[in-house]
């Protein structure tokens, strides 16, 4: 495919992505508005004195029409202003910036380990297809994949933090300075890694097994091309396209804040911010996060599609 073709593909996808993000934001706004109660009710808590709720509503400008509030927020967004939180009056951009650090750190560490482990084990299993190594890897990945994050997290904390005392059980009190306490990151990263590694290993293995069994690999072997070259130069790229897309989904999942892991290990990332904002009916914060998550998803999927496009151009025709 020519360079201009790729450019127009990217441009089309970006336009579509922008439309998708707008749709997500509108949907999130509508859903948050349709939840019972609003920020005033949530703030009033167990003291829902009607006068107090009314006063809160007025103070938060919730008495204005829905569309007007949405319009104001959208106008602000056009200037890069995410608005202010209803619950605290602090800028939403700070909520996002504060929560993004820990989330990004965890995601980066996880991906940094995920790629080599996932591809390494996948290739290893494919090389020994049907052998004991393959069976061990396949069996193990299937078993770990079946364990939900929270269960694995609780198990790891109990064994490695509380029983053996090797690692701290949570990151409580470390705030955003998680890098200064690397030991606290080990368990959360392990939990985050567990399932993505399994799916990646299985994808890579399947892709390589398919490719190695294909006529062109057999042909290459007949011509005396060395086995390593067949495996890494011809078979592996074939497995990369689906793996890249899977990787993009994983990164997206990681960057949107994995609530279970954040709650269990007390890591104040984006998932925690979102959870609190929904409970407080803090619409501006929820919308701000919806924009960020929407943009992230669009960009990551686009990136994966471009990579897949390069590696296996035929898939691009379908997309």
């Amino acid at each position: 495919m020519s360079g201009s073709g790729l450019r127009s593909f990217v441009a089309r996808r970006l336009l579509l992505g922008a439309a998708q993000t707008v749709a997500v934001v509108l949907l999130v706004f509508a859903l948050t508005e349709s939840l019972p109660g609003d920020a005033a009710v949530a703030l009033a808590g167990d003291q829902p004195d009607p006068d107090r709720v009314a006063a809160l509503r007025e103070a938060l400008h919730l008495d204005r029409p829905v569309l007007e509030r949405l319009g104001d927020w959208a106008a602000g967004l056009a200037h890069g202003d995410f608005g202010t939180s209803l619950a605290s009056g602090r800028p939403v951009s700070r909520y996002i910036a504060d929560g993004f650090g820990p989330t990004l750190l965890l995601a980066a560490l996880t991906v940094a380990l995920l790629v080599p482990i996932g591809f390494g084990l996948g290739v290893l299993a494919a090389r020994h297809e049907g052998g004991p190594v393959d069976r061990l890897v396949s069996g193990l990945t299937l078993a770990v994949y079946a364990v939900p994050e929270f269960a694995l997290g609780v198990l790891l904390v109990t064994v490695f933090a509380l029983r053996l005392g090797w690692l701290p059980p949570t990151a409580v009190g470390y705030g955003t300075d998680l890098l200064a306490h690397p030991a606290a990151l080990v368990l959360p990263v392990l939990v985050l890694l567990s399932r993505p590694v399994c799916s990646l290993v299985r994808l890579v293995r399947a892709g390589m097994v398919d490719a190695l069994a294909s006529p062109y690999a057999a042909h290459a072997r007949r011509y005396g091309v060395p086995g390593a070259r067949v495996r890494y130069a011809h078979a592996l790229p074939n497995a990369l396209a689906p793996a890249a897309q899977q990787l993009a989904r994983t990164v997206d999942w990681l960057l949107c804040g994995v609530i279970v892991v954040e709650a269990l290990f007390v890591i104040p990332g984006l998932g925690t911010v979102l959870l609190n904002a929904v409970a407080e009916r803090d619409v501006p914060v929820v919308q701000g996060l919806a924009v960020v998550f929407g943009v992230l998803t669009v960009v990551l999927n686009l990136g994966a599609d471009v990579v897949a496009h390069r590696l296996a151009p035929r898939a691009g025709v379908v997309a």
Partner: protein
Amino acid sequence: MHDERFPGLRRRGLLAATGAVTLGALALTACGGGGTDSGADGGDGGTPKRGGRLRAAFAGGGASETLDPHLANLFADVARAKALFDKLADYGADLSAQPRLATKWEANRTMDRWQVTLRQATFHDGRPVTAKDVLYSYRRIADPEKAYRAKASLEPIDLEASRATGERGIEFVLKRPTAEFPNVLAAFGAYIVPENAGRKAGDFDRNPIGSGPFRFVSFTPGRSAVLRRHDAYWEGAPHLDELEFVVANEESARVNALLGGQVEYAHELNPTTARAHEDKGQIEIVRLRNSAMQGFCMKTDRPPFDDRRVREAFFLIADRKELVDGALSGAGVVGNDLFGKGYEYYAADLPQREQDLDRAKSLLKQAGAEKLKVRLDTSAVAAGFTEAAGIFRDQAAKAGVTVEVRMGSKDSYWSDILDSGTLACYRSGAMPIEAHISQRLLTGSTTNATRWRHKDFDALYRQAQSTRDRTERAAVYGRMQRRLYAEGGFLIWGFADWILGTAKNVKGVETGAPANTLDWARFDKVWLA
């Protein structure tokens, strides 16, 4: 060795008896830093040691938390607020008002004017606490433009007419006689801040100045607040050098952090956690009795509960022991359809109500409410709610009543059940019995979830508020409680313990103070051994 679990109960019982005149407690509270403690060390032994940093884990409010004491809403907010600030009075273990920044209060004959004298205390920046600061704080809370939580509690005060009578004297003019005015001074969130503090948004989050036992060091909303000893604290400097509040919303995370030595104090633990670790030697479990009333609220203004026989039948349907064991995992005591077990003025002389299904059935029959169907609103908003609803549904079935349990949204539950529905799960933190009545059981009450509106009951409340003699006043409260016991809208089946965990080296944690009282989450008397 006596029963270690509730050493404070006995001690507190004694204090309440001798301290019936609220000023009596004063002698106990005066002590120097490093000197003898006010009694919390009785069960722990040893003299307080100075120094160290204590980290306390609470469930918090996320990134929108603030240190503005007047916005305090959650337990974490209150714990931070009471470390940084003081109120004029605060609640003792029996929820009677104990003097704090106020050294004494005196009413005129009609009890609608009160002279309050402040003690000599200083804010963290060295300025003295004056009458002006008090009036500023109360006027800030009462600001009609804002919705501070304590506004309703301060409503009896005519703040326009109230004035400073000197540097440390204030005359409070009240809108009507209020014998329990000291309760107003102790109200949830009625903290004293320096004059003009909090005029600009975010003031309190950058540098909150209070007169409390700890001064501000740093604050990151939703994560941590670090405080340092206030050496000039009027009640003696705290033993700890530093106090850090950290936020961990998951109960399992708080327990793990405590077990792993990352914090020394974990607030709000589950009964199952408590059972798993009690007397295992790893951590200390502290149960604060009578902290949270648990019950069902029946709307007395609509069928079927507008018939008092149906309400009484429901009182008799409840097997309270089963509810406490099932919904609270046994971490609590049974209730007797009255608020405030163990508190001042509680009508402890009324017989404990037991399940009586035959009588319940016959009452329902008399009321023409056989084969009754009721919807019970519940939600995961408080521990034990959904369990209690399920258990009560099964108990009601035995009396021929079909209870249909409906799960509501957790974020808007309290507001949803205020006006709609007929039967709902209900809970309440500790507050004086008088406050429970005035907030929930008078015609003009703002959160009257049982729709209990009776002119003669209102009149009794007014009578109590204009009765100067404490014994006579107690008699009036007794009459009101007998009425509620016989035909009120609150089916109060239990009082939940509030459970804390502490590291083994944490000493001086008061064990007899229900949540929300002065000695709960109080860290100036705590030390690290």
